[in-house]
């Protein structure tokens, strides 16, 4: 592979606190150098040189919450990886909610082998916390981590038994492995299908109170304090959850939290007249909650942004709202949607890239999220200004239900590289004078 030089790039690399115009040199799948000072280091022989004319270069995005149906159905590892690269995502953590559930070492190895052979991106499986995700017996944490599971998670489920959770945390601590948990109290959720409030009441839909999220979250945070495990709250959606997380962070180092892009951009009014594409778990909340999530992201109370990519068959969405399934595709629109926060001056660009790439890589100890010399050349070239409209038929996911259908975004992925290889390109030729030496 020929060396590649990206000139006149706006390099945003939170791992080195960098946001500057500079040059990126890639050879043999690694970053040789990236930054302003790289301009002086000369161009390697035979390199392909691209003038990015000020377009941005970020470390490739790391999405810590992706649902893939393989083994099983819906999205495959391949289709998800196409969606990922189109959205600038170069690594993702795959949730264990598959059929069968990823709860043993053989399945982790199978996923890793499959991904290595056929996926365009780095796929890291999270293994189930309990066998069959039944919430009873913990899985082989040691063996699972040895073969490559990066975290333990119950996927969309919540462990209701506090003692099971306590023991899982203690045992995970021995192997220094993170627990990634979504908190939804099953009884309080009941048959709820959207945020509890006036809007649900007028629509005649059962509501999910905010307390359904924060009560098990507070339980988990107390147990995390007791056990000292690295606890990661997979998806927060309410202002009160942010308060709970802030209190926990005041006294603990090893707790972290994520928020889905949907909860940063949308609120319950997007459900409108029973639009099932906006049926998500946790449900979209009110505007005050959305603003609280944005502040929490800016202030570092919430560490990472996830896509919660979980496309559903169209048949599962073409139903009355209460009968439809939760979930939406999100990989491809993750970056563009996040850039809206930058364009609206709500979150600085470096903080966004940190939450989309550097921080998740650090939390789950993935070899990603940085452009420092010697790192894998996983990166994304972004036109920060390019306006575009999301059309469902342009999505690469198998199931094309997106919460951002027909949404106008500003900023789009031009090229995605994994280990120095271009795995996605949309108009790279137009942006730069491709010259060879």
């Amino acid at each position: 592979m020929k060396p590649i030089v990206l000139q006149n790039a706006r390099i945003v690399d939170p791992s080195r606190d960098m946001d500057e115009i500079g040059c990126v040199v890639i050879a043999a799948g690694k970053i040789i150098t990236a930054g302003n000072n790289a301009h002086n280091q000369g161009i390697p022989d035979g390199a392909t040189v691209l003038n990015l004319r000020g377009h941005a270069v970020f470390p490739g995005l790391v999405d810590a919450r992706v649902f893939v149906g393989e083994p099983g159905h819906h999205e495959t590892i391949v289709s998800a990886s196409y969606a990922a690269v189109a959205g600038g995502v170069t690594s993702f953590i795959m949730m264990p909610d598959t059929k069968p559930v990823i709860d043993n070492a053989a399945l982790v190895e199978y996923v890793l082998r499959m991904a290595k052979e056929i996926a365009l991106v780095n796929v890291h499986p999270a293994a189930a916390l309990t066998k069959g995700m039944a919430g009873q017996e913990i899985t082989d944490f040691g063996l699972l981590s040895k073969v490559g599971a990066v975290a333990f998670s119950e996927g969309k489920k919540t462990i209701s038994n506090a003692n099971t959770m306590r023991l899982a945390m203690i045992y995970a601590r021995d192997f220094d492995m993170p627990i990634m948990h979504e908190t939804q109290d099953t009884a309080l959720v009941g048959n709820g299908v959207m945020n509890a409030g006036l809007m649900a009441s007028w629509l005649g839909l059962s509501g999910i109170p905010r307390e359904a999220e924060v009560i098990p979250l507070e339980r988990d945070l107390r147990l995390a304090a007791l056990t000292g495990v690295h606890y990661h709250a997979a998806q927060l959606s309410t202002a009160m959850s942010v308060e709970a997380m802030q209190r926990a962070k005041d006294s603990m180092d090893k707790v972290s939290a994520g928020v889905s892009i949907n909860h940063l951009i949308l609120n319950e009014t997007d459900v409108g007249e029973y639009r099932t594409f906006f049926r998500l778990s946790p449900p979209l909340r009110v505007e005050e909650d959305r603003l609280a999530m944005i502040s929490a992201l800016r202030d570092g109370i919430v560490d990472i942004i996830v896509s919660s990519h979980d496309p559903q068959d169209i048949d599962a969405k073409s139903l009355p709202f209460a009968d439809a399934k939760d979930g939406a595709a999100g990989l491809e629109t993750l970056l563009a949607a996040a850039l809206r926060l930058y364009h609206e001056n709500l979150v600085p660009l470096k903080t966004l890239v940190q939450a989309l790439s550097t921080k998740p890589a650090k939390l789950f100890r993935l070899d990603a999220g940085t452009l420092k010399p010697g790192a894998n050349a996983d990166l994304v070239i972004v036109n920060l200004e390019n306006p575009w409209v999301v059309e469902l038929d342009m999505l690469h996911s198998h199931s094309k239900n997106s919460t951002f259908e027909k949404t106008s975004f500003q900023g789009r992925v031009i090229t995605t590289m994994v280990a120095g290889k271009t795995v996605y390109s949309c108009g790279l030729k137009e942006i730069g004078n491709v010259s060879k030496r």
Partner: protein
Amino acid sequence: MTKNNHYPIFPYRHLLGMRGLSKSDIITLLDRANASVSVSQQKDVKRSVLYNRIQINLFFEVSTRTQSSFEIAGRRLGANVVNMPVDNSSVKKGETLIDTAMTLNAMDPDILVIRHSSAGAAALLARKVSCSVINAGDGAHEHPTQALLDALTIRRTKGYIQGLTIAICGDILHSRVARSNIFSLNTLGANVRVVAPSTLLPTGIEDMGVEIFHSIEPGIKDADVIMMLRLQRERMTGVFVPSVREYFHFFGLDCEKLKKAKKDCIVMHPGPMNRGVEISSAVADGPQSVIQTQVEMGVIMRMAIMEALLDSRNRNALGDKI
């Protein structure tokens, strides 16, 4: 049809809910119904507004009175009424609502009346068919024809609605009748109260423009109209309400409690009633009860609604669906 042209156009293709209708939309429908009361009461006058038109009743939930009411309304207007028996049809065999809608649409009906246990089902159907859809109840969402027949009953009994104090008592949480009526009566200028234990009130009720009471006696004090709602048997024991006995004590209506209301207060119930649970027989069958009038107005109101929908279609005056 030309004789109806003096009514303002009802500007929608469908009737899916009261929410979204303006005061004048509601009054148009009530005026149409009111004008035809005397005509409707003459049994031998069969009108031909829906002559040769096809009306399909698609009831996914069992209903005797609403379905019969729609059927009689359609027949009196000259329509060919088809009742789709959902129990033994392909729906039971796993056909989705949208498939059913597409199939029915291919048969080119003019009016589709749907009742379904899921909120939003009527709206979903309406997006897929080219005829007019009337929501005859969707989950806990809306039951607009009930709200309209209730308004018609009140208007014909009291002469007006503006300024009346109307108490809606019972299971507000699960009631589509309550939601449609809260919206409709508020729009028409009534003072709406709800009377229920908090377990049977929806979240955000305080922002729905109503006054809230947790006991029937203060709730119906000086009321002009009392609307009792049915409490489903399975909700009477357990988490929502501890027992029938306790419920009747605080929320049931009997002659003694009725004295708290105005002397000329009327008592309504959408049916079917649980005698002795939410309402005593003496009240249900007493002089202040207009429950039978409601049933009668039901047919007339539904005739007027179908006429209005068809009329606006014929006059090519379609607006957006609601």
